[in-house]
């Protein structure tokens, strides 16, 4: 059963299994584990970016296609939903029209980009996609009558997915497990009070419905991608990545494989964009089409580990958590250490630069450092590194077995 769901492609490491299960259950029970609006939008974003980064990994990791137009497909999905909902009203029908329209438009554009430019070398393909993406961004800004230009385009989601809708009248309860554990460690004497505090109310509104629609779509799309990458097709993609010339000689039309791959990745990125638009119904060029988003996708893909798909889960989670909470974390650390640094004697006062380094204003510096370190210690990405270790031990085993049976 598990074998079929995961297409026989296991994470292949105990540490990874634990991390991935933690991410999965964290997201599955998210609204009942983490209290507050920030936490809610964080878990939603993690879901969306898992899909987006995984669809990018199909290109970059499995086939070594460097595309800089992935945000364009993401944006197409988002704008299609926004435009459809805006012009046809906040109904489920217009939402589906938007989603399907966005996927189709993305697929067609991906097909054109693929057919026109996948014959050229990797670097040129990257430049062509960059040009197309920038061009698309300009179009979106200029056609403000339809797209809202730089201002962006807002819309109302279907009532059942909005905050006004009540799935159940009565409130449900969540349990802030992390806060409870924290208090258990820092203040173990107060167990009863802490437990009471950790319980919070969950309003079963349309936001919860929307979250679970997004979560289940994420699970479905992720498993679909896992299956496709473990299909005969996926194996050919790896072959094209490793040695395109030889793949041709084996009888595989590599341009076709790469083009199909670009179309699939584009269509799934559009779905991610549609989910993102539904979760935050205000679509702007800045949040969907900017180069900054593209760089973030690239970073998540590389940090998690290219060519594994599970890397997208790890990368998206680490990145978004860091992006959201690093600043808060530093603020706490800054305040906690303020007393120590203020009490330093005159001749040591130059040490206060250390205090300034952990000032919350410097959070981007630490984020950068985090990435440099992660690439240094995990050159194959987090998932890639754990897998490589596992593979090494497997080979060592198989050789031992071979030498036992074959004394020569």
């Amino acid at each position, binding site marked *: 059963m598990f074998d079929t769901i995961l*297409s*026989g492609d296991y994470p292949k490491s105990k540490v990874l299994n634990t991390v991935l299960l933690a991410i999965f259950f964290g997201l599955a029970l998210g609204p009942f584990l983490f209290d507050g609006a920030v936490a809610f939008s964080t878990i939603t974003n993690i879901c969306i970016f898992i899909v987006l980064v995984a669809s990018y990994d199909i290109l970059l990791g499995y086939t070594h296609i460097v595309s800089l137009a992935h945000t364009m497909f993401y944006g197409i999905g988002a704008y299609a939903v926004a435009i459809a909902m805006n012009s046809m009203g906040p109904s489920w029908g217009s939402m589906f029209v938007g989603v399907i329209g966005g996927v189709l438009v993305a697929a067609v554009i991906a097909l054109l980009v693929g057919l026109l430019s996948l014959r050229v070398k990797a670097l040129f393909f990257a430049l062509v996609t960059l040009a197309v993406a920038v061009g698309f961004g300009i179009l979106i800004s200029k056609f403000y009558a339809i797209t809202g230009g730089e201002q962006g385009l807002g819309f109302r989601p279907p009532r059942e997915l909005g905050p006004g809708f009540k799935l159940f009248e009565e409130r449900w309860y969540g349990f802030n497990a992390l806060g409870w554990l924290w208090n258990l460690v820092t203040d173990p004497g107060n167990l009863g009070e802490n437990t009471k505090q950790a319980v919070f109310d969950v309003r079963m509104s349309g936001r919860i419905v929307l979250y679970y629609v997004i979560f289940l779509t994420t699970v479905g799309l992720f498993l679909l991608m896992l*299956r*496709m990458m*473990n*299909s*005969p*097709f*996926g*194996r*050919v993609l*790896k*072959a094209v990545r*490793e*040695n395109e*010339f*030889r*793949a*041709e*000689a*084996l*009888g*595989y*039309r*590599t341009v076709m*494989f790469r083009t*199909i791959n670009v179309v699939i990745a584009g269509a799934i990125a559009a779905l991610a964009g549609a989910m993102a638009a539904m979760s935050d119904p205000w679509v702007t060029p800045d949040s969907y089409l900017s180069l900054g988003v593209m760089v973030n996708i690239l970073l998540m893909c590389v940090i998690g580990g290219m060519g594994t798909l599970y890397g997208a889960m790890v990368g998206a989670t680490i990145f978004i958590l860091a992006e959201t909470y690093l600043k808060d974390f530093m603020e706490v650390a800054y305040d906690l250490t303020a007393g120590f640094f203020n009490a330093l004697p005159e001749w040591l006062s130059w040490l206060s630069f250390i205090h300034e380094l952990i000032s919350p204003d410097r959070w981007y510096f630490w984020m950068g450092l985090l990435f440099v370190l992660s690439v240094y210690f995990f050159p194959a990405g987090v998932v890639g590194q754990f897998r490589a270790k596992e593979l090494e031990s*497997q*080979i060592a085993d*198989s050789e031992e077995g*071979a030498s036992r*049976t*074959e004394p020569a």
Partner: protein
Amino acid sequence: MDSNHPVLETEGLTIQFGGHVAVDHVSCQFHSGTLTSIVGPNGAGKTTYFNLISGQLPPSEGSIRLFGRDITDLPAPARTHLGMGRAFQLTNLFPALSVAENVRLAVASKAGIGYSLLGRADRRVDIYEKAVHYLEQVGLARRQQWPAAALPHGDQRKLEVAILMALEPDIFMFDEPTAGMSVDEVPVILDLIQSIKQDKNKTVLLVEHKMDVVRSLSDRIIVLHNGELVADGEPAEVIASPVVQEAYLGMAPGGQENETTPA
């Protein structure tokens, strides 16, 4: 197929790189059940001739016919599906993929399942078993989990041969299959080529430097020199001919393990 009709035919096949004519109007026919060796000094155009036939290079002039059909404009993958199989001189593998996967890709190509998007590759036990079958033939089955890049050179050459066998082509094109192999590894490969030759429906083209190998395997030898076809015929006859003595053997230094000494 009528054995009088050639399986493969090149007519006036020519390729020019700038001013240099690497293959110069080579017209030649190949029949099934025959092993033809292509010999000639380094730079004679043997590998380039192979590249033209299997579609890695487009010719400047001339045509190629396979089973009577003009394939001059067909890309390499299409030629493979028509039954042409090619092994490469410089080892040309999927380095990061496992040994088994290297061969499995060839079996899967032959089976035509490459575009299957939703099936599971690892559930196709038939494909995998066939791959292992060919790995066993070259003696690599016990290293099937290794990444291809981790194999010693001789084993990489064997893997190259296993990939070609797994394509189950009608025309086998071997480009120096034993180059760089240690002496005790060579017989395995030669026996395999010998066994392919037994099948009357198969055609084998072999580029080889070692004259004892050429002599023992060939039904026919053609000689290329400066891109031109200079001799064609029975092995004994060709090796004895003055043009070969001068053009090929005269130029071949002792570097080929002294095996180039004519009988």
